[in-house]
């Protein structure tokens, strides 16, 4: 235990005094997580199937406005806001918020819109009845007042969103107008019926839209920027320990300390375990720091914070498995590489390749289908999938076990290859 503690302390001191190593292990990932989450927030939001915030002003609580609002809400595509910061919206404030880019779209229903529509509907019916001679008197000329609904768009809004809003308003306006005209016909025709009898027109459903998936629906849960970037760059940082870990192993080999360690009694394995434990703890610290940042700091930038799910036990297992794989990968690289330069260049390239195959740079659903087939071969993807399952699906231990097992196998394989290669070299 004394030997293990001594090598643990030695390794901690070496790491703390390696400023470049500390920057690459802690400062760089903090910057990466923050910058990438902020940068990708709008891009990932655009592709994510989430509700769009829409400003809505209906100052007179007009029934046309209420009908349009209900119709828009039924699409489940919009979150409708009728006030901002506790203040009700009028036409000017609504236009201001949209032009400032704070909201993508705003709708203003003018005062008296329903009365105008109702008046127009009455005129349409009276004109028709007069033309066919059902009403007495000579045919009059009717003036129709147009109801103007204002829709304000942020110039950056996509055409698909515009089409969705225009279509929804057009559809609900047409429904209301149709209903008003029908009601007006019923009301006026009732005057011609004997006694107190009233005409009541019922509208049967004339068109039924049958929506169905032509094939199995894609159940991919799309992460937001935080849910993707925080675990992705945390994993990237964890695997980045390959550089300080491998170079620490190489420096011992090059500097002669390896010779001293090997010639000490029952020492080398203990010192090596001490080294691995330190880097394992580094991985855990990275997770604690970066996930805390996702939970507490990212929301300060106006971006949704990281939700860690409710299965803390599963999260711990996922983190431990990822750290084990990362440390084992570093040990293997340290065994194969013969110089710091080699470890730094080959290590970084390998991490970048594994990260890109693993869907760390770009979420899986944005990758071409043929590239997605490669994901199954990257340990970083196994680890990232675990975090997706935990954060997006609130998965438990049972759900993440297959990928935990893969990470464990990968780590064990790296250790066997690394130590085997070292032993082989020593024998030869």
């Amino acid at each position, binding site marked *: 235990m004394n030997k293990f503690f001594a090598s643990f302390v*030695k390794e901690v001191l070496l790491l703390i005094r390696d400023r470049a190593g500390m920057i690459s292990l802690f400062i760089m990932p903090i910057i990466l997580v923050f910058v990438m989450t902020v940068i990708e927030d709008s891009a990932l939001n655009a592709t994510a199937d989430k509700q769009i915030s829409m400003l809505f002003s209906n100052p007179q609580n007009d029934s046309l406005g209420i009908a349009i609002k209900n119709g828009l809400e039924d699409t489940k595509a919009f979150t409708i806001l009728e006030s901002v910061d506790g203040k009700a919206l009028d036409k000017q404030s609504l236009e201001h918020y949209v032009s400032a880019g704070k909201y993508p779209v705003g709708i203003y229903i003018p005062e008296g819109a329903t009365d105008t529509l109702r008046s127009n509907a009455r005129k349409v019916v009276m004109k028709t009845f007069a033309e066919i001679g059902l009403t007495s008197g000579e045919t009059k000329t009717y003036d129709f007042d147009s109801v103007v609904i204002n829709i304000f768009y942020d110039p950056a809004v996509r055409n698909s969103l515009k089409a969705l809003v225009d279509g929804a308003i057009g559809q609900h306006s047409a429904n209301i107008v149709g209903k008003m005209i029908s009601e007006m016909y019923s009301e006026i025709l009732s005057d011609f019926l004997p006694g107190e009898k009233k005409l009541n027109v019922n509208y049967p459903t004339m068109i039924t839209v049958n929506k169905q998936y032509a094939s199995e629906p894609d159940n991919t849960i799309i992460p937001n920027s935080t849910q993707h970037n925080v675990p992705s760059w945390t994993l990237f940082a964890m695997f980045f320990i390959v550089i300080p870990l491998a170079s620490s192993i190489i420096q011992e080999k090059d500097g*002669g300390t390896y010779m001293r360690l090997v*010639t000490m009694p029952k020492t080398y394995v203990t010192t090596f375990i001490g080294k691995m434990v330190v880097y394992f703890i580094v991985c855990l610290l990275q997770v604690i720091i970066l996930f805390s940042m996702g939970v507490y700091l990212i929301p300060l930038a106006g971006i949704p914070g990281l939700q860690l799910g409710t299965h803390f036990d599963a999260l711990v297992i996922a983190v431990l498995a990822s750290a084990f794989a990362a440390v084992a990968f570093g040990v293997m690289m340290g065994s194969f590489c013969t110089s710091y330069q080699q470890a730094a260049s080959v290590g970084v390239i390998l991490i970048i390749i594994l990260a890109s195959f693993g869907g760390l740079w770009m979420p899986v659903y944005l990758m071409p289908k043929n590239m997605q087939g490669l994901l199954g071969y990257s340990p970083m993807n196994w680890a990232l999938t675990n975090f997706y399952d935990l954060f997006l699906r609130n998965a438990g231990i049972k759900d993440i076990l297959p990928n935990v097992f893969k990470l464990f196998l990968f780590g064990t394989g790296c250790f066997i290859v690394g130590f085997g290669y070292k032993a082989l070299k020593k024998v030869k």
Partner: protein
Amino acid sequence: MSENAIIEIVNLSKTYRGSDRPAVDHVSLTIRQNEIFGLLGPNGAGKTTTISILCGLFAPSAGEVYIDGLSVKSDKEKIKNIIGIVPQDIALYPSLTAYENLRFIGRMYGLKGAVLKQRIGMYVELLGLQDSLRKKINTFSGGMKRRINLVAGLLHNPRIVILDEPTVGVDVQSRNLMVQYLGELNKTGTTIIYTSHYLQEAECLCSRVAFMDNGKIIIKGSPKELISQTPGCQTLEEVFLKLTGIDLRD
């Protein structure tokens, strides 16, 4: 093992993978208890390989090595406790202080607490490093690094100390102090095996020397014997040049 021998090398050979000639070629040698034995030779002679096999760093391709009656093949761990190594490279962590390095190495040899502190204090004082104990190794001069490297090999009071060119690149004062100290250490009963390119130093320090060239022992004996046996030579360096030639070695 021969009587009074502490190290017995029997027909030792080592050929590295990919090499067509052995680095050590059928070497047999006996080193007696409490002697300072010099293993001398030009670059590539096989000195470091022989020392590495003694330390258990490499397995021999053929032959046997016994240290205090223990085989380097089967009793490696026991042997590690009785030998101290002072490698050719500065085998210390540059970003740690001298004290942190020595504390780590001492603990690796099972020393702790007051004993470890006392040993560190004693050796750094003997080698004139007490004022630099809390300084990082990367701030040390070449001579100071060599002296701390020596202390690191002595902390556990080994019975045999193996030094691979311990004074290379060291100023005259540091070299003088180190050589003087090795003589003192030998007087306490420690056997010293020593390689060096400084033949004058070996001539003064060693009770016996062996010249190695091309992996073989070409001659062995006390410096005086070797000088007297080689006609026309007044110093060990002249004997060396006569036996190994003046051609440059890589």
